[in-house]
């Protein structure tokens, strides 16, 4: 790759790349507002000024250049930090601030506002503007975001977002000159499913998330990298939490999955992470007629004892799981059945799902499959579908022991009627549901945000999650529960950690061959073998206007 120099250091660039993009890639700090790597370049904020001391032909540029619009060329020399640059930025910053309200203490962007950051660096501390500031007022622009136009610095990122990213064109710039303001067309509220991104890309506090604002100051939030489990796309997110409460999900850049974006539906899954009411908060066992709290040891002991009594044959054991479970959990429960009961009766629902196809990439982020790990289950050759003949046969035969992981087949009342009559039903799950009501033993699992795990997305990419918040005291991650349960049943294998389970899975499951836990990294890794998904249907996305 050709090379040019930034502050005396050689930097490689792709032909056609802009100076700012190359500089940011190598960790240089150049203040900017209107530039966004995912959108077109307008070069209007004029903040990313740099000094081009050599254009590549031995001559300097006559004046300061905006780094976002200058093409990098071989032999070019750039200074991102000298007195001339500082002064240039200072004057642009002054212009930006004269009409920007200095209400940082009550502004929700405070702490993650680039205008605030750069004003500390380049602001003068004293304004020479002695006229009243421009007032454009707030506008109600949609369900998900709030718009306070007084704070707007007219960078036009939001305008470009609806034009270039979602293609919905519902947002735009109105009036001109000093009165330039953003708004929706014909006063209609926005309808696109990605409004939250507008709050992310807004460099100031003009657009903020209604769901989050005024709940917590951003500098108090701790951040953990994770993935969104709202659908099978597996967008990379940052879980932002404080005092064990999750406040919001923000997209985390991953060019292979979601680029910079996240849908509003995905953002709202944070609510489920704080859900306490319907959580199963301790192991429960059927004592007499009622489920009562018991200890883990007692639960495992009781299960082991009962299974020893029942002595189930392979066809008398069944495990039902949903695709919310991680790869490791699916693998372990499969292994439990195989090792303990020589049974392969593990099933999960695979309803057909739709993948939209669109000229606008962002529309392909939302799928109708609202579980994160369908591809993982398929890769592990777990069979499924309520109409599956084998499943029907198993259900209609003699059943003695049923394991239920999560909430599979929730609408299949017939199944439930049959399984209810089974002698031992073990439910492992996070929330109370109809399965936990009919179970003999209920083992409380943990939610995505509370445990580690890997998930395989619709494009066969394996991605891992981190522990963000602490789980309830008497719950355990599902993979640990299954591992402990198999030990209680006297099986050989025992696992201490997720990497260990993952690497064992790589050994045993063909689809995962060639990867290891370390290779997943923060951007995930694609499976080498593609598993066909018969339930996938590609539909063209009609962009709503």
């Amino acid at each position: 790759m050709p090379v040019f120099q930034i502050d005396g250091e050689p930097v490689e660039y792709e032909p056609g790349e802009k100076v700012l993009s190359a500089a940011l890639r190598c960790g240089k700090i150049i203040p900017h507002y209107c530039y966004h790597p995912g959108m077109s370049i307008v070069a209007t904020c004029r903040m990313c000024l740099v000094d081009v001391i050599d254009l590549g032909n031995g001559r300097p540029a006559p004046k300061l250049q905006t780094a976002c619009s200058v093409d990098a060329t071989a032999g070019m020399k750039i200074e991102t930090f000298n007195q001339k640059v500082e002064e240039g930025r200072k004057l642009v910053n002054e212009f930006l601030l004269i009409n920007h309200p200095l209400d940082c203490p009550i502004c929700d962007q405070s702490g993650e506002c680039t205008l605030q950051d750069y004003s500390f660096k380049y602001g003068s501390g004293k304004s020479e503007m002695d006229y009243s500031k421009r007032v454009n007022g707030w506008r109600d622009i949609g369900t998900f975001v709030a718009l306070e136009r007084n704070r707007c610095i007219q960078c036009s990122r939001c305008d470009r977002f609806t034009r270039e990213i979602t293609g919905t064109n519902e947002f735009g710039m109105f009036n001109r000159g000093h009165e330039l303001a953003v708004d929706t067309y014909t006063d209609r509220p926005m309808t696109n499913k990605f409004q939250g991104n507008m709050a992310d890309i807004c460099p100031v506090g003009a657009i903020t998330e209604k769901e989050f604002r005024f709940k917590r100051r951003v500098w108090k939030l701790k951040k953990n990298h994770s993935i969104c489990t709202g659908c099978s796309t597996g967008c990379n997110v940052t879980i932002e939490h404080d005092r064990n409460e999750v406040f919001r999900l923000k997209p985390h850049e991953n060019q292979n999955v979601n680029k910079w974006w996240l849908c509003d539906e995905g953002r709202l899954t944070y609510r489920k992470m704080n859900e306490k009411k319907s959580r199963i908060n301790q192991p429960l066992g059927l004592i007499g007629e009622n489920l009562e709290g018991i200890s883990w040891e007692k639960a495992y002991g009781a299960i082991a004892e009962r299974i020893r009594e029942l002595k189930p044959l392979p066809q008398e054991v069944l495990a039902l799981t949903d695709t919310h479970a991680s790869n490791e959990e699916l693998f372990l429960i499969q292994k439990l059945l195989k090792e303990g009961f020589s049974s392969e009766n593990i099933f999960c629902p695979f309803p057909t799902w739709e993948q939209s196809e669109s000229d606008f990439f962002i529309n392909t982020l939302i799928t109708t499959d609202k579980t994160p790990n369908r591809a993982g289950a398929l890769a592990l050759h777990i069979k499924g579908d309520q109409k599956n003949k084998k499943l029907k046969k198993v259900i209609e035969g003699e059943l003695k022991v049923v394991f239920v992981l999560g909430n599979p087949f929730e609408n299949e009342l017939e199944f439930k009627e049959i399984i209810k009559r089974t002698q031992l039903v073990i439910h492992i799950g996070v929330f109370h549901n109809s399965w936990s009501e009919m179970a003999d033993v209920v083992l409380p699992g943990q939610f995505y945000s509370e445990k580690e795990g890997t998930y395989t997305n619709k494009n066969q990419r394996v991605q891992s999650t981190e522990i963000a918040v602490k789980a309830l005291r008497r719950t355990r991650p599902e993979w640990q529960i299954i591992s402990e349960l198999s030990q209680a049943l006297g099986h050989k294998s025992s696992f201490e950690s997720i990497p260990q389970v993952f690497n064992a899975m790589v050994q045993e499951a063909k689809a995962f061959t060639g990867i290891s836990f370390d290779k997943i990294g923060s951007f995930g890794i694609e499976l080498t073998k593609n598993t066909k998904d018969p339930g996938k249907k590609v539909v063209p996305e009609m962009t709503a206007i």
Partner: protein
Amino acid sequence: MLEETLVLFKNIRNPKYDKSLAGYKKTGGFKSLKKVFGMKPEEVVQEVKESGVRGRGGAGFPTGLKWSFMAKGTGKPSYLVANADESEPGTCKDRELMLKDPHLFLEGLMIGSYAVGCHHAYVYVRGEFFPAIKTLNAAVDELYADGLLGHDPLGSGFNLDITIHTGAGAYICGEETALLDSLEGKRGQPRVKPPFPAVSGFNGCPTSVNNVETLACLPFIFSDGGVESFKSFGPQNNSGTHLVSLSGHVNSPGVYELRMDVSMKDIIYEIGGGIRNGKKLKGVIPGGSSSPVMKADEIDVLYNFDDLAKIGTMMGSAAMMVFDEDTDVVKLLHRITRFYAHESCGQCTPCREGTHWSRQIVRDFLNGNGSEEKLKRLDRVGGNMLGTTLCALGDAAALPIQSIVNKFPEEFRNYYATT
């Protein structure tokens, strides 16, 4: 006595001239086009380069050179757009041409289209020019009826359509990239350059945007012996005649066609007939409101691109605004800053904030709230806009502020000394 040199105004100055197609043909119209159709497009561009004609819209960029930058072999169509969005305060030359001799301009447009290989030329007319729009449309209809436009005019095998497009009243749409955005149906806002329109212009295709007067020069250049006589009308690098829009406190304001080697003094005192009511001259805005102001003692200079640039100002669109000793330059500056604050598109920071802020400061002086500090601030705000914006509007707003503040500071001081 200084007189006009009639090239572009040859017909307009003839009181018996019939501006219809028949009338234009009688005066030798479309002979140049016929000649051009016999040449290769590259030869036409070369000839225009030779003539040294420079863009009359304000920047003075050599037209032939501009055309030679047009991207070739891209597989995309090329476009020629005539910039008839004449809205620089003080300028009214293109209106005269379009209104009184539309066929001269349209012939020039056709020659230009042939040179750049354009098969659909556009005329972006300022929306307020209702009579000119009417005349142009009528003239284009005549050309189609005569077979000079459309399929295979004059048996040349070259197809050409012309569309007259009206603007919606924004000064910024006179900037070529904003004009193209507006022509595409978008908000008229200047684009980031590069890429220049010659590479990616109208609908992403190679485009040349030329001023009406520039195009109107072409029929003369391609007449017999045109290049030599065109070059003889002015000093080196400033060839041809140009239309000077003389306005302000002169006895006979108007649009005059002059050579490029005439001094400003002569224009004001001989062509313009001197200052109204026998007053003394205070200053001149030499090239439309965006050019730096000149004081009365600076006007002994040749009125062309290079000589004005040498003394730190510019000829721009050759709109000379003369003001006499009674003129209040603070009010003048207020009017100018008001104009730019209103016409700034607002997309880039220094211009959006600076034009409005400078207007507020000048208004303070008029309201008796001026101070030495504010005078300095005004100069600083103007300077901060200069050269920091995306397009030239920021410079256009900054130059008059800086020149007036620095050349007439005592007038500002009078405002706050007396109140």
